[in-house]
C-alpha cells in the first residue's frame, strides 16, 4: 500500500482522513477519501457546501492549518519533478513542500476579488513566483510573465504588468491568478470553485480558458465545485462527495447518464434545467445537509436517502460497477448475485429519465392549511381577471456619483434606465440578468424601498391600478400590506436578536392585524404553511439552517396575505438540494394563494423554471421580454443567447456557442453608446454603436419583444432545440 502509484497518475489520494477538533468535539471532515488524477485529465470533485472538498484539495499542498486539523490517516502521492512524492509526509519539511508549490502543483481560489494582493502590481506578483523557483534574470522573468498574461487572454499584457488588483474586474483577476499559477508550468492545477464568485458569462469564459490551457500546457486539473453543470462540459471524470466521503466516482458520461448513487441522482434531479417542464415540482432531496457531528453512522446519506435500508447503519462498501465507475452504496453490494427489488428500482435503466421517474415518490409534500383554492380554481381566476396587478412605465433609478470635499456630482450611475414592465394577476414574471444589471433595483423600486428617479409605478392591491410612484410613506405602508418580499441572503434577512414569532409576526403587529396570542396563532399557521413546525416560533434564527431560514422569510413575506410577491434571488445562497425545496415551496404557495410574483435571479434556468414570462435585463435596460419557454427556445437578443449558452448545463457533450460574448460588463456609470451590449456582442454592426435599439415586438409574435437592431434577421441559438437532439432525456423533464 505504501508504494508509489503507477506513473500515469499525477495525483493519487489514498484513504485520506482529516479531523478537526473544536469545542464541540472532534469531527472528521474528510473520512477515507480516495481519488486520483491521471495525466492530462480534468477531474471534478462535486459536493454541497461543508462536504470536505476544500479540505481535501488543500491537504494536497499543505494549506490546511494544523492544528486544528489532524491528519489521521492516508497518503497523498503527487508527481513532481523529482518523481512521485508523498506530500503528507512533507508537512514537517516545509522547504520541500515549498519547492513543490507553484512548480509542480498550483492552485486557484474561489474569490478572485480577494486572492490578488491589493498592494503589489500584477507583474510583481507573477515574476515573484518565477524567481522563487528558477534561476533566471529579471528581464527573462518579465518576458515570460508578459507571455503568460497573453496566454490567459488579458488584453495588452505589458500594460497589465503595472496594474493593481483594484483596477481589474473579477474575471480579469481570475485570469491573472491563472497566469500566476501556471507560470512555472506545473503538471497539476488545483481549482477551488474558480468560477463561483463570477457572473455566468464570465464563468463560461474562465471555464473555456481552463479547458484550452489544459491542452496547450498539457497539464491535469482537479476542479472542485458545487455546481454539477460546471463539470459536465469540462471534466473527464467526476467524484461526488458528501459529508467527508466519496459517494460515487465515474466518467462524466456515466455520472450524468447513469448516476448510481441516490445522492448523485438527487443532486441531478434537483437542478432546474433548461429542458424541464416549467412550473412543475423539482425532485428535491428531503431534509438538509446535517452538521458533520450529526451525520448518521454507517452511510452518511442514510437519513436523506429514498432507498434507505436497515443495512445502511453500516458503512457501505465501494462497489465497482464498471471499469471506471464506482459507488459507495449498499444497493449495489453483490449486484450480480441478487437482482433484488431494491436494486432493481435503483439500478438506472438507460436513457436517463428513469432517475426522475423512479424518484417521483420523493416529491416533497408541504403541509397545507388551506387546501381549497386548487390549481383549477386558480387557473380559472387567472383567466377571469386577466388584468395587470403592477405596471411600471419608463422607471429609472439614477445615483449621483459625488466626489470631492464639496460632494460635487461628477457622474450618474444609471442602475435602472427606463424600464417598462407589467405583471398580470397570478402571473410570475422572471427578471434575469448578471450582477450590476439593475434587477435588484427594479425589485426595490416596485416596492418603493428606493425612490424612483423617473417614471410611473402603478399597483392594484385588489382590482384597480393606482399610482404609487410618489405617495407618502404612510400611504405606502397600506399598499405594502398587499406586497411581500423575499430576500437573497437568509442569514442577513432575519434579525438575529429576535425570535421567529417576532420576526414573522412583525408585519401583523405593525398593521394591527393581530395582537397577543392571536399573533402566536397566526405565526404558527404561517410556519406550518411553509413546512416548519409551529412550536418552533420561540427559537432564534441561528437555530435554523439556510433553507429553513428562507422558509421563515417566506412566511414573513406572506404574513399580511399579500397578493404580490417580490422574490429577489431567493435561492442563490442555498445548496442545490435545498434550492429545489424552496423553488417547489414558492410554486405551491403561488398556486395556492394565487400570488402574482416578480422573480429575480441571475440563473436563467431557475427563472425559466418558475416563470410565465421572462424579462432579460442588461445594464439597466430590458433587452428582451416574452414567454418563458419561447425566450429559451428562440431568443431574439444576442445577450439572451449568450446567457443561455453560458449556463453550465448538467448535460455532457452539449455543443457550446461558437461566439461567446467578449470582455466584461461595462461600468453602469459610463454605459456604451447605442446598444449597450455592442461592446460584447458577436454580431455587432456599426449601427449598434450609434443608435439605441428600442424594445419592439419580435416579428409577428404577440407577446415577445426584443431590443436588437437585427432581431428579425439574426437566427439565434436557443436551447430546447439542442435538447431535442439529445432525445428524451430533455423532454421527459419533470412529468408528474
Amino acid at each position, binding site marked *: 500500500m505504501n508504494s508509489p502509484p503507477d506513473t500515469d497518475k499525477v495525483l493519487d489520494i489514498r484513504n485520506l482522513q482529516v479531523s478537526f477538533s473544536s469545542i464541540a468535539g472532534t469531527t472528521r471532515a474528510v473520512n477515507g477519501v480516495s481519488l486520483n488524477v491521471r495525466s492530462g485529465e480534468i477531474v471534478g470533485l462535486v459536493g454541497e457546501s461543508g462536504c470536505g472538498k476544500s479540505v481535501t484539495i488543500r491537504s494536497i499542498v499543505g494549506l490546511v492549518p494544523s492544528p486544528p486539523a489532524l491528519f489521521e490517516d492516508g497518503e497523498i502521492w503527487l508527481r513532481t519533478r523529482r518523481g512521485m512524492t508523498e506530500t503528507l509526509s512533507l508537512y514537517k519539511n516545509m522547504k520541500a513542500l515549498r519547492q513543490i508549490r507553484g512548480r509542480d502543483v498550483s492552485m486557484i481560489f474561489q474569490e478572485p476579488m480577494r486572492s490578488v494582493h491589493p498592494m503589489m502590481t500584477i507583474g510583481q506578483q507573477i515574476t515573484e513566483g518565477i524567481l522563487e523557483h528558477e534561476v533566471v534574470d529579471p528581464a527573462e522573468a518579465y518576458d515570460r510573465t508578459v507571455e503568460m498574461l497573453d496566454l490567459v487572454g488579458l488584453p495588452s499584457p505589458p500594460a497589465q504588468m503595472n496594474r493593481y488588483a483594484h483596477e481589474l474586474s473579477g474575471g480579469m483577476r481570475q485570469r491573472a491568478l491563472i497566469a500566476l499559477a501556471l507560470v512555472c508550468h506545473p503538471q497539476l492545477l488545483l481549482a477551488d470553485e474558480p468560477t463561483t464568485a463570477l457572473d455566468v458569462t464570465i464563468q463560461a469564459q474562465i471555464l473555456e480558458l481552463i479547458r484550452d490551457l489544459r491542452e496547450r500546457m498539457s497539464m491535469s486539473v482537479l476542479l472542485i465545485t458545487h455546481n454539477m453543470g460546471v463539470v459536465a462540459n469540462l471534466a473527464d471524470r467526476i467524484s461526488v462527495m458528501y459529508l467527508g466521503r466519496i459517494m460515487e466516482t465515474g466518467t462524466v458520461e456515466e455520472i450524468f447518464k447513469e448516476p448510481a448513487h441516490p445522492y448523485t441522482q438527487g443532486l441531478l434531479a434537483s437542478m432546474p434545467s433548461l429542458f424541464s417542464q416549467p412550473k412543475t415540482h423539482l425532485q428535491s432531496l428531503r431534509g438538509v445537509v446535517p452538521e458533520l457531528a450529526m451525520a448518521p453512522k454507517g452511510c452518511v446519506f442514510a437519513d436523506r436517502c429514498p432507498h434507505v435500508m436497515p443495512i445502511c447503519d453500516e458503512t457501505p462498501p465501494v462497489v465497482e460497477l464498471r471499469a471506471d465507475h464506482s459507488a459507495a452504496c449498499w444497493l449495489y453490494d453483490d449486484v450480480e448475485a441478487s437482482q433484488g427489488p431494491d436494486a432493481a428500482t435503483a439500478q438506472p435503466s438507460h436513457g436517463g429519465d428513469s432517475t426522475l421517474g423512479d424518484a417521483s415518490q420523493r416529491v416533497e409534500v408541504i403541509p397545507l392549511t388551506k387546501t381549497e383554492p386548487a390549481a383549477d380554481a386558480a387557473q380559472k381566476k387567472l383567466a377571469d381577471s386577466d388584468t395587470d396587478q403592477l405596471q411600471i412605465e419608463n422607471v429609472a433609478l439614477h445615483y449621483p456619483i459625488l466626489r470631492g470635499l464639496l460632494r460635487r456630482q461628477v457622474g450618474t450611475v444609471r442602475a435602472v434606465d427606463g424600464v417598462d414592465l407589467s405583471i398580470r394577476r397570478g402571473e410570475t414574471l422572471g427578471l434575469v440578468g448578471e450582477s450590476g444589471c439593475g434587477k435588484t433595483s427594479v425589485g426595490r423600486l416596485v416596492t418603493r424601498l428606493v425612490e424612483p428617479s423617473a417614471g410611473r409605478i402603478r399597483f392594484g392591491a385588489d382590482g384597480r391600478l393606482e399610482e404609487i410612484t410618489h405617495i407618502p410613506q404612510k400611504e405606502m405602508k397600506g399598499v405594502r400590506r398587499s406586497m411581500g418580499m423575499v430576500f437573497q441572503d437568509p442569514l442577513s434577512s432575519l434579525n438575529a*436578536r429576535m425570535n421567529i414569532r417576532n420576526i414573522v409576526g412583525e408585519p401583523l403587529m405593525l398593521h394591527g392585524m393581530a395582537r397577543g396570542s392571536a399573533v402566536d396563532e397566526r405565526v404558527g399557521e404561517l410556519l406550518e404553511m411553509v413546512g416548519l413546525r409551529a412550536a418552533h416560533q*420561540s427559537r432564534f434564527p441561528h437555530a435554523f439552517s439556510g433553507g429553513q431560514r428562507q422558509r421563515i422569510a417566506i412566511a414573513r413575506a406572506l404574513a399580511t396575505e399579500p397578493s404580490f410577491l417580490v422574490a429577489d434571488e431567493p435561492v442563490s445562497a442555498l445548496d442545490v438540494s435545498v434550492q429545489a425545496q424552496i423553488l417547489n415551496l414558492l410554486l405551491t404557495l403561488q398556486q395556492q394563494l394565487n400570488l402574482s410574483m416578480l422573480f429575480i435571479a441571475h440563473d436563467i434556468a431557475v427563472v425559466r423554471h418558475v416563470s410565465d414570462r421572462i424579462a432579460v435585463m442588461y445594464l439597466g435596460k430590458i433587452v428582451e421580454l416574452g414567454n418563458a419557454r419561447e425566450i429559451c427556445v428562440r431568443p431574439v437578443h444576442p445577450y439572451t443567447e449568450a446567457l443561455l449558452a453560458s449556463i453550465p448545463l448538467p448535460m455532457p457533450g452539449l455543443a457550446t456557442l461558437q461566439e461567446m460574448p467578449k470582455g466584461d460588463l461595462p461600468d453602469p456609470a459610463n454605459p456604451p453608446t447605442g446598444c449597450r451590449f455592442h461592446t460584447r456582442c458577436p454580431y455587432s454592426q456599426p449601427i449598434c454603436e450609434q443608435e439605441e435599439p428600442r424594445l419592439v415586438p419580435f416579428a409577428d409574435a404577440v407577446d415577445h419583444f426584443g431590443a436588437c437592431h437585427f432581431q428579425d434577421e439574426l437566427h439565434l441559438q436557443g436551447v430546447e432545440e439542442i435538447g431535442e437532439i439529445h432525445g428524451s432525456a430533455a423532454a421527459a423533464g419533470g412529468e408528474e
Partner: protein
Amino acid sequence: MEQNAAANGQPLSNETEAEERFDVTKQVSYGRLIYLRFLRNHAAVVAAFALVSIYLITLVCPFFAPYDPNTRFLEKVAHPPLLPTFIDADGRFHLRPFVFGTVQSRDPKTMERVYTEDTTQRFPLQLFVRGDEYTFLFWDSDLHLFGAQDSPVFILGTDTQGRDLFSRILFGGRISTTVGLIGVAISLILGIVVGMASGYLGGAVDSIIQRGIEVLLSFPSLPLWMALSLSLPRHWSSIRIFLLITILLSIVGWGGLARVVRGMTLAVKSEEFVLASRMGGGGTWWILIRHILPTNLSYVIVAATLAVPGIILGETALSFLGLGIQPPMISWGVLLQDAQKVSFLSQMPWLIAPAFFIMATVLAFNFIGDGLRDALDPYSNF
C-alpha cells in the same frame, strides 16, 4: 484563549448527549449565547467579579473604611503602613490578626519623623467596630467593618495631615469610579443619538457630523480638558464642579463612541432584515428602536466598557494636576497630588497606593471589554 475543559473534553461518545447540547444552543437567545461565550473567558470573569467588588465596596465605603476620610490623627502624621500580622515578637501564633503599637521619634540628623514598632503592644483587629459616625443614604451609623480598640489601624499608612490613606482611597474611589460611569452614560447617550442619526440619515447631516467629530478628535484630549477646566468657576461647590468635570470629560469623549455607532448603523442599515421590516410596514422610528438599536447595543456596550477607563483616567489626571475635583471632595487623582512632590514621595512611598487602585479598576474594565468583544465575535465557534 482558554477553553473550557468540559466543553473541549472527549470526542462525542454519546449521540443523544451531543444532540442535547446542540439543542441547548438552538433554544437560547442571542444574548444568552454571548453570555455563555463570555463565561469561557476566565480572565474576564475574574475581572468582572473584581470590578463588581470595587464598585460595591466604594459604594458603601463608610462601612468598609475604618475611619472618616477627614479624621486627622495628629500624633500619627505620615505614618507608614502597618500591616496586620498573626505572629508576635516571641514567634507565637495568634488566630486573631493584630497590629503592633508604634512610637514616634525624630531622626536626630534629618529631624524627620520616624515611627518604630513597639512589639510589646498588641492591638487585635476586630470586626464590626464602632467608630466615626457617618450617614449612608438616610441611615446614620457608626459601624465599620474592621478596626482595633485603643489603637488606630493604618493598613496603607497616613498622609501628611495624619489621615488614614486606606479610608481616603475608598472614599476617593467612590468619586473616581462614579465619574467613569456617569461620564460614559453621557457619552453613550450622545454617541448613540448622534451616531445613529449620522448613520441612518446619511447625506449632508452625516458629512457635517463626521467632520465635527474629526475636529473633536484632533484635539489632544488632556490639554483640551485642562483648558476647558479653566471655564469652571472656582467658587462653585465641589459637587457642582464634580458634575461639570464629568460632563466635560464626556463631551470630549463621545466622538469615538459616535463613530462606532455610526459604523454599526451603516452596516445594519443595509442588512436585508431592515428592508424586510420596512416592507412589513416599519417606519424610521420602529426600525431604529426595534432593529438598529438592539443590533448595535452589544457592540456599543463593548465600546462603552472600553471607554470607561479613558474617562476615569481623564478625571484622575485632571485632579492630579489640581484642575479637576477640588478638595474637600476626594478622588484618586486628588490623593495622588501628594505623590507628585519628590520630597514627599521619597519619605512616604506609600502615597502612591491610589495608583494601584486606579490600575486595578482600569485593568478590570479592559479585561471585561476584551472578553465581551471576543464573546460577540460571530466567528468564534460554539
